[in-house]
């Protein structure tokens, strides 16, 4: 039987993988990245990232994580989530300003710029939250 700590760390691990997989998957859709990578490497990374993202998403919805939700979702977790998503909001705003600047001054495709904003806006807070949740407490 898994302890609440193991469930909590497991969930954070899946969240971390999910955030990274999403970022890699979406980066593979950016034209600049597609041009820079060899076709076979691009296909491999893209397929791996989508698979990992799907697997981790399904895992996060598994009963092992949802059943213990009331205990795992304690107030430290809620604070960590609030901190991570507040931080993510500001990162998202900065990224949106940079994208606006790039769109106004370069010929970069708009869909690539928007995808970059999406990657940062979605992945950054998820990864930060997962890292905060995985931080190991000191011993007894």
């Amino acid at each position, binding site marked *: 039987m898994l302890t609440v700590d193991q469930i909590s760390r497991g969930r954070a691990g899946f969240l971390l993988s999910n955030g990274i997989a999403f970022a890699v998957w979406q980066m593979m859709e950016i034209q600049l990245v597609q041009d820079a990578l060899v076709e076979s490497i691009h296909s491999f990374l893209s397929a791996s990232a989508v698979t990992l993202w799907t697997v981790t998403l399904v895992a996060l919805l598994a009963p092992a994580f949802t059943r213990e939700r009331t205990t*795992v979702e*304690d*107030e430290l977790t809620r604070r960590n989530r609030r901190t991570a998503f507040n931080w993510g909001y500001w990162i998202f705003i900065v990224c949106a300003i940079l994208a606006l600047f790039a769109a106004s001054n370069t010929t970069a495709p708009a869909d690539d710029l928007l995808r970059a904003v999406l990657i940062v806006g979605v992945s950054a807070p998820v990864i930060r939250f997962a890292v905060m949740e995985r931080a190991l407490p000191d011993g007894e």
Partner: protein
Amino acid sequence: MESERLNNSMKLHRGRAGLTQAQLADSVNVTRKTINSVENGVFVPSTVLALKISRALQTPFETLFSLPEG
């Protein structure tokens, strides 16, 4: 703005009660990380959690928690 601080003597009273962090965490329905963060002053618990901890350790709230001097 100065960040919130709350002194506590949880480690001492938890030791007296013969409880591990994990056991205390179980009894108040939080993770061990939360207990550890409160003990080390990294996280200021809500009033409800602080009262639950004080009840679990059978120690008066004001003995367990105090505001920093000054």
